[in-house]
Structure formats: C-alpha cells, structure tokens
C-alpha cells in the first residue's frame, strides 16, 4: 500500500520499534497537540470529522477504494462486508450526530470550548467546562475496526494527543482512517499516532503507560487486568472487556410473513463484521407459540444466510478458524444423529455459515464467523435463567417484539445487567451516542472544572 510515511505503522514491516522511538513519538504528539489541537474549537473538529466521514461514503474516495481493494486480503472480510461495515460506521459521523453526542454527554455543545451553562446551571449561577486528557492511549483489540475508529473520533473531540496501539496485523483499517484524517487536516493528523505490535511487549508498552493520562483498552479480561496492573495510579483506565450479545424473538411477531423478515434482520446482525464484534449475537432465543416455530425459524435463518452468502460472502478463513467451525459442526452432527433436540443447517463445501437449533436453552458461546444458535425459551424469565452463565458480560440484546412489549422487556433486561437493547438487525450498528458497555462515551474521558458564580 503506497501511503506516505506519517505514522509508525507506515514503517516497513521489518522495522523494529524501540522504546526510544515511542518516547520521542509521545513527546512529538504532546507538542503538536499544544500547537494545533488544544486551542481548536469543537465546531472545527466536528467539521473535519464529518467531512472525512462523508468522503469515506463516496465510491471514488481514495481511502475507501484502498480499503475495498486490499481489505479482503488484509482483513479477511469480503468486499460487501467491508462496505457495509464502513458505511454503517461513517454514516453515523455527521454534524448533527456529533452535536447530539456532545449535548448528551456534556449537556451543551460548547462545553469543551468555554465555561458554559445549561438552563438549570444558569438558574443556580453555575457554569462548567470539560477538558479531555492531554495524552490519550488506545489499546485496540483486533477483531473489528470500530473500537479504534470510535476511540480516535472521541479523542479528537476532547482534543487529546492520541496514540493508537493496534493488535498485530489489525492496523489496516485504522491506518487508512488515520491517513484520511491527516489528508483532510495535516495538523490534526499530526496529533495522532498509530503503531502495531503483539500485545504484552512490556518494553514498548511501559513507555506509553508512563506517558498516558488516560488509557482505553478493548480486549480479553486477562489483557485488561494485565494493563491495569502496569499503570501508574494517576492514570485513568477505561477497560472494555469481553462481551457477548444475543437476540430475542417474541411469538407475536412470528407470523408466516413476519418470520422471514425477522430472519433477514438476524442475518444482518450475523453477517455484520462476520459476527466478530462484541455486539454480534451468539444465540437467538425464540419464543414458541407463534405461527413460525423456533425450529422453523432456525431453518428460515439458514435459508437467509445461504442467500446472503451469494451477495455478501463471508470470505476466506485461516485454517485454524475454519477447523474450529468444522470441529464444532462435527459434534453437532453427532448430536443431531442421536436426538431430535439438535438440528443443524450449514453451507455446503464451506464453513461460510452454520445454524444450530438446540432445545437445550442454556446460553452457548459461538465460535463466530457466521455460526449462530437458535434456542427456544417460553419467556424472558426462562431466557435470563439460561443466560445466567454470561450475566454481567452481556452487551446487547437484539429484540423483535411488538413495540410495547419490547419496551417492557428493556427494564428487566437492564436490571439483569444488559447495557443495550435494540431492534434485531441493528445489533452491530449502534448509534454514535451509544454508551459503550453502559459507560458514558465522552463523560469518562473528560475532567470538569465547575464555576460557582456570585463573587
């Protein structure tokens, strides 16, 4: 890929990063932030972000073209999967949405620019300003690019110098995004650094950890615990651990015509980023009693996944991942041969997609890459009993139910520990204002200064 040499990640693969190089990069970032970013208005940053996002949506955009041309080889995602994933993300980054995010998180759109008061604050003679960390480090997991993308967007909004450490081999899309920002505004791009190495390289990571004011990290619970244990006490740590998601389909919507429609929405959720995100469903719980039975729903889902494979193929997998799917299919084939309580549908001559129906409603973690379970539950209570094993680890529940019922489900789900409830079909496509793992998006990054008037 012929990109200019702006970031550490642009160095030739054989180049070895050293702690000295990283320390220098950190100092440069902080210097550039002071010069180019700290004094910028939120409005100007919002403009750059929304312009860059809009450009990514245009078919002739250089970075988009590179992403689609080289993406399949670099990431394993097929072109249609990349297209949809990128479009879903960049469509969210509009002026209006960014504005809404600032208001949601900080109460007022100019909260990061000046002492600002909401109506309520005015009445009590108060005002406040919020400030982001000087130096923000992101440790991004490798599965999908969204956490790195979103981290960069939020970090720019709060005017932080940012260092994004990508998992080895997963920097391709974040790198293109960083270049697109640099091209749109080189000074803003100069406040951003990207690198990749295999996690656990303490020599490199200790440099970042010593410099950072705030660190965000996505990854396994072990990775997060390891990072947290190596941070100075003053450093703010925002860890986003492993999460799983599932769906629920109420019997009322399972009519003869509704069944296929919902199967199509579930398919949207399963094929998005090949199910690799924390928001992708492992299991779809289906209530019996509708015109379409849970078993029939599983079959409809299989039909739809097969159709989608024609237009939005999963793409090739490395042998170990394919072997995991093949091995898992093997055991379900055995179970299906011995019991009508297990059924399996899968792509022929490939591991492209798999649907397992199991009467046993206990939550089962999927091996992902379009491998999904359908399980019957009579109601929400039974569902939550069966999902107890992942309680506290559930991000999103996608729901298909009559509107009033869906809203009624939200509160018990929240009380049980779910942090997001959304319509099926939107699971892997949260709005910009989404609170990741139930935490404020900007609110966790900033530090407030309150002004109490009446001197």
């Amino acid at each position, binding site marked *: 890929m012929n990109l200019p040499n702006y970031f550490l990640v642009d160095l030739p693969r054989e180049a070895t990063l050293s702690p000295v190089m990283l320390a220098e990069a950190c100092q440069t970032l902080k210097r550039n932030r002071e010069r180019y970013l700290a004094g910028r208005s939120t409005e100007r940053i919002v403009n750059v972000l929304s312009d860059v996002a809009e450009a990514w949506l245009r078919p002739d955009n250089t970075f988009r073209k590179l992403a689609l041309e080289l993406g399949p080889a670099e990431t394993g995602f097929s072109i249609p999967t990349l297209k949809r994933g990128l479009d879903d993300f960049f469509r969210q980054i509009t002026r209006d949405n960014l504005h809404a995010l600032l208001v949601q998180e900080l109460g007022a759109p100019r909260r990061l620019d000046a002492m600002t008061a909401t109506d309520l604050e005015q009445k009590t003679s108060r005002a406040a300003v919020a400030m982001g960390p000087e130096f923000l480090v992101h440790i991004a997991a490798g599965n999908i690019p969204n956490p790195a993308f979103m981290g960069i967007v939020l970090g720019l909004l709060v005017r932080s110098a940012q260092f994004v450490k990508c998992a080895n081999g997963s920097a391709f899309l974040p790198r293109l995004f960083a270049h697109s920002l640099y091209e749109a505004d080189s000074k803003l791009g100069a406040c951003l650094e990207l690198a990749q190495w295999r996690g656990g390289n303490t020599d490199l990571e200790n440099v970042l950890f010593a410099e950072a004011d705030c660190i965000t990290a996505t990854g396994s619970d072990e990775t997060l615990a390891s990072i947290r244990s190596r941070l100075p006490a003053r450093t703010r740590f925002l860890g986003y651990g492993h999460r799983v998601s599932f769906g629920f389909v109420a019997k009322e919507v399972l009519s003869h015509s509704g069944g296929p429609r919902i199967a199509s929405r579930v398919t949207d959720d399963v094929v998005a980023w090949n199910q690799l995100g924390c928001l992708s469903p492992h299991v779809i719980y289906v209530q019996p009693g509708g015109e379409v039975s849970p078993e029939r729903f599983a079959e409809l889902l299989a039909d739809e996944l097969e159709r989608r494979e024609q237009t939005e193929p999963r793409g090739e*997998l490395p*042998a*170990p991942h*394919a*072997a*995991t*799917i*093949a*091995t*898992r299919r*093997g*055991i*379900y*084939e*055995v*179970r*299906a*041969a*011995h*019991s009508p*309580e*297990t059924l399996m549908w899968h792509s022929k*001559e*490939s*591991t492209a997609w798999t649907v397992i129906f*199991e009467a*046993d409603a*206990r*939550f*089962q*973690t999927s*091996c992902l890459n379009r491998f999904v379970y359908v399980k019957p539950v009579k109601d929400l209570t039974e569902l939550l009993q069966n999902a107890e094993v992942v309680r506290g680890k559930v991000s999103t529940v996608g729901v298909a139910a009559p509107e009033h019922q869906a809203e009624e489900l939200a509160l018990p789900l929240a009380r049980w520990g779910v942090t997001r409830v959304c319509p099926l079909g939107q699971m892997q496509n949260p709005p910009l204002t989404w609170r990741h793992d139930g935490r404020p998006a900007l609110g966790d990054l900033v530090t407030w200064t309150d002004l109490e008037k009446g001197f």
Partner: protein
Amino acid sequence: MHKELSSFAARLCGAIQARDAALRRPVSAARGPCQDLEFDSFALELFALQFQHNTAYRKICEARNNTPETIEHWTQIPAVPTAAFKELELTCWAPPERTVIFHSSGTTEQKPSRHFHNAESLAVYAASLWPWFEQNVLSDLRFTIYDLRLLCLTPPPEQARHSSLVQMFETVRQKLGAPETAFVGQIASDGSWTLDFDALLAALNSSRVTRHPSLLLGTAFSFVHLLDYLAENNLRVHLPPGSCVMETGGYKNRSRSMPKAELHALISERLGVPGENIICEYGMNELSSQAYAVTSDKWQVARDAVSSCHLSPVTCHFHFPPWTRVQIVSPETGREVADGETGLIRVYDLANVFSVMAVQTEDLGVRRENGFELMGRARMAELRGCSLMSAQIANRKL
C-alpha cells in the same frame, strides 16, 4: 456375540505379526505391508462389523446415509469426531465387557473422552503398538534392548488406570522386561502428574555409572518439569551414548509450554541425548495405533541448525503404521488437501477393532508425502448440552 469381531481381530493381529519382518525395513520403504488393496478389504470388512455392532456409530452413519451397502472404498467410511467419544458410548462392547476405560487427559474438560477396552481389545492394542514402537524408537539403538534402562515419566498403571499413555508405557515395559520401578511419576494431591525427582535422578545417575543407555518416555510437560528441576538445581546428566528420549503430547497447561526446538535443545543440553535420538510420538486415547516422527527428517533439521547457527524449528513428519491410513482434510470441504497444505488430521485405524476405526481428530496438520506435520489443535470450547451418554437418552434414542 462378537465372534466376527474377534475373528477379525485375530486375523488383523496375524497380518501385523506376519509382516513384522517387512516392517523392519527402513521407514521410507514401508508403504506396506498393508498395501492399499489389502487395507481396503480389511477396512470395508471392519466398517460393516462396526456398523452392525456399534449402535452409536451406526446412527451417525445412517444420518449421513452411509451403510455398508453404499460404501465402496475405505476413504468413504464416515469418520467420528473425537469429541463424540465424550458424549457417546462408541464401542462394540456391552457394558459388562468394558473392563478398562481410557479417559482423555485434558485437565479443564468437564467430560473426558472415553475409549472402552477389555483384555481382548488391549491385546490388539499391544499387537499394534509394539512393532511400530520397536521400529521407530528402538531400531536405531546401538545396543540390545536387554541393556536398556527404561524410565517412564508418568505415574505407574495402578495410579493411572484410565490413561492410554500409561497403558502404552506399561505395554512397552512388559515387552522390554523392565522392572515396575521404571515408572518415576506420581499423582499429586490435586490429581496432577508430578515426578519423583529423587528416584528419577538416582536412575539417571545409575545409568550414567553403569554405562547402560536409558530410554526415557514421557509427555512434553513432564520433560519440562524434569528440565526445570535440573536447571533449578544446576544439574546436568550425561546419559551414556545410545540413550534415547520419546516425548509426546501437548502441555495442557500442566507446565509452561515451549517450542519443540527449545525442548529438544534443552533435553540435549541437560541429559546429553542428541537431537537425532529424540523421537516425537503422536497418539491419543481414541486410537489404538501411534505415529512417530521419522528420524531422517530430524537429521536434516539438525544439519540445518548447525549451518545456520541457530535453532531451527523441529520439523516432525509423523507416520502411522501401515495398518492405518491418515488423511489431512480441508476443514472447508472435508476433502483431502494437497501436499503441503494444512487441514484436520483424520485417522483410519484398523486396530480400533472394537470401537470406531475412522476418527476425525481436532488436530491440524500439514500433509507431507505419506506423513504429516503436526500444527496444533483447533480451538474447541466445551459445548454445553445434553450428554448423550446419559441413560435416559440412551434408552430412548438408541
């Protein structure tokens, strides 16, 4: 009840023994003695018998629409995933006949894999084990096996009745006429395998003093335990020339894991056993035959390592005995991959007379001429769900 299976077993053992001499030829020439036609005829006969006598297996075959009438060649015989040994009673033996059960050794598994045996099937096991072990592990030894001092780095059979590996070592011990004290492992209070270092060191030192070569058999993790102990105590034992090591299996979180090249280099350094006398074995609870890495490949690697002045990865090309066949199958298509490509290892083992001959492992390998190179295991979470071995389901469905 199993007259036909017993008769098959006797003929198979006869065929193995009759060709024992042929087996002693260099490995590269040992495509036979079970040439394809003969293997095919044995395999089709055994498939028909297992279809008839192994109910759980028959159900799997029927679900795939495979019956003895539809199968024309051994390559079409349905393979059973190793995980099915956890859930089903994949055996031709009736419950009272199952006097020995081998369990898989994974420490984190909720359900162990189970391979049912008794004296008759263990006789086939021994008949399969010994000639291939002898040819691969003992053939290069420049001494008579009577001089050999055997050391097994596992607990003795009475402490590990369910371990097929210990059964294998016990079979070897009996064949070699070694004393029961050859077992220098023990079971710790938490159930894990440890070593009796005092006994082990005494045996190694005695081997050194008497100039009798040692043959050490153990898992990779037990060798790591030994090497760590020697390193901690700053000890080196220079075993007499001709000493030999056979290591097998993964680490299963029982010790720190290390690359094979490093393990072999440390064995050479601490025990004085040269790389060409370290043999890798690949076997599993679900099979009755074992594969060994061919020595000639390792010679090649040793030479490369010298010329490049650093440790090369140890390339182990494994070979099963001639009464088995191995396919490396694409996880995508289920078809055999081309030479040099990676896939899942599938073994057709005629010595699995009373269970299932065709076993689909979870291990990844690279196909190499007649053998394969071991790459690792497919990531396999424990799958929740009904255990099909439970009595209710057995009664209802079988």
